[in-house]
Structures are given as C-alpha cells and as structure tokens.
C-alpha cells in the first residue's frame, strides 16, 4: 500500500508587498525560499518545517505560512 502523501504547508507570498530584502531567505533554516527577480518565491516546499521564522521576520507583511 502506498504511503499517504505528506501534508504540505501552504506559503502565501504577496508579490505586491515583497521588496526582495532576502531576510526570509537567509534566516530560513531549511532553505525553502529564494529571491527571483523582485520577489521571494518558494523553491522547495517539501523542506518546510512550519517554523514560521520567515513569517516572524518579514518586515513587509508579505509572507504567511499556513499549516
């Protein structure tokens, strides 16, 4: 029997608010995020541990992590 699929978190990033300061990218312990152009994007969602450090640190109210 196949293993049930791991439930992934949902990371919402507001492109309008993000200023690509890269604080979330540098403080993420598992390298989930990266900067692409003028906004932050999710690179590797499976690595996310829902620690919410990006949510706490984002100065621009741009990122939210839903379980």
């Amino acid at each position, binding site marked *: 029997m196949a293993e049930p699929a791991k439930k992934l978190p949902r990371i919402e990033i507001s492109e*309008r*608010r993000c*200023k*690509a*300061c*890269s*604080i979330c*990218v*540098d*403080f993420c312990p598992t390298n989930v995020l990266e900067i692409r152009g003028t906004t932050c994007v999710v690179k590797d969602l499976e690595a996310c541990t829902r620690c*919410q450090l990006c*949510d*706490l*640190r*984002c*100065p*621009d*109210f*741009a990122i*939210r*992590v*839903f*379980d």
Partner: protein
Amino acid sequence: MAVAKQKLSVPFDYDKYLRKDKLPHIWCPGCGHGIVLKSLLRAIDNKELSKNDLCMVSGIGCSSRTPGYVDFNTLHTIHGRAFSFATGLKLAKPSLKMIIATGDGDAMAIGGNHFIHTCRRNIDMLIIVYSNAIYGMTGGQFSPTTPIGSIATTSRYGNVEPPFDICEMAKAAGATFVARGTAYHTQELERTFTEALGHKGTAVVEVIDSCPIYFGRMNKQRGASEMMENIEKNGTVSVKQVDKLPAEKTEGKLVRGILHRVEKPEYCEQYDKLIVAKATK
C-alpha cells in the same frame, strides 16, 4: 502564550490591525521597522486591546511613519513633539492607551527636552524608540545614538561624539518602566511590549534596529540579513545572562530586557484627584 499561538494552523493575521490600502509601506527593503511593528501588533493582540481604545502618536522620521499603517486612532505631528501632543490628548481623554512611535533622532535630539519631561511626569503612555543610529529619512546624517567611529553622511571620517544611552536617560528622567529590545529578538520584543502595555505610567522601550541602506552601506555591513546577524552576535546581551557571563563577553554590549520597573503615582490620576479636591471644596 505567544509560543502556543505559533502552533495554530492559521498564522497571526496582521491585516486586521493594518490599513491594507497603504501597503506596501515606504520603509526600505530590509528595514527593521516592519519587524518591530509586527511585534507590537502581536503584543496588542495578547493584551486584547480594542483598536478604538488605542492612539498612536508620532513625530517626523522613518519610524514616525508607523501610525500611517495601523488602523487605530493616529496622530502624525511635528518633529520631536509627539510627546507633547500625546500628553495633551491623554489629559483630554484619559481612557485612551497612548503609544508613541519615535526614532532616536526624533526622541533624543529634536525632542530631547520633551522626552525627559514626559518621563519626569510619569504620564501613562508607551514610548517606543526605534534606535537605528542614523537619520534615515533625511539622507544618513549621524544621530545622538551613532556609535563612536561610525561613518555617516555628516561624519565621513568617523563620528567623534559619544552616543546617548536611551535607557539610562529615561531611567534618570523618571520613567517607571524602562526596557530594551532588538529587531532580531522579535518574540522577546513581543513579550517586552506586552509587559509595557500593561504598565501604568511612562514605559520606554528602546529597540535596537537596523538601517541597511544608510548605516549599513556606509559601515561595511552589506545587506539586511548581515545587519540582523550583527545585532545578535555583537550588539546586545540579555539582562538574565549579564551577571553570569565573564566581563570580556559583556564589554561594550548593551543589555536587553526589562531594566527598570517601579510603581509611582500616575500624572492623570493625580491631576484628576486635584480637580475633584478643589471642585468639591
């Protein structure tokens, strides 16, 4: 309590306290002011304060743009005089919980006199001093908290003026709650703000903040994340650890945490008592 909230499946909703149409805010990429505001909003949520009972007052500067983004009663006033406007408003309507957002230049230089007399009166308000050691809005001039030797637009060969210690100054002037936090230690800052909001009297919280665009760029701290890491590694030491650590590890560092807390008669209450005593005579 704060940690328990983090475990919920829905993250903290900052938007309920913000004027969403005013976002994105004008602060530069990587500016710590947004992080401080987030800590404050979580602390307000912890205390379950109503938006209508809060009033945020500010002067001029980067930090003083804060009231523009929060959905409370707000007042954006003249440079350094936020304390005076807040004192007037508090006396007219003592039920309001006053929060002052001010910067190191606004509070220590232009409004220095107003700051010390507000502390002296012990009027019930929370004063948040965003201390980024520079005048960001006007182009990076050195401020009263710029460390000796730092480069600024007006000190190209290094600053020679010794900086102010904002917490010592507030304590000496008579503030009854004095604390220091940093933009890096955001959950600790939330707890400090929660304590400060519950205090009756003048509460001064100095927040060590980062200005990557002016201070960082001129002082070889490239990028917002590097500045944040510097705050953590070289900036401050917790008040709980300061006595346990050897002297060489605490030398030159600022102490963060609640530094001073006493109970004294509050100004509005004393004033009301006087009015009642004289009017019923």
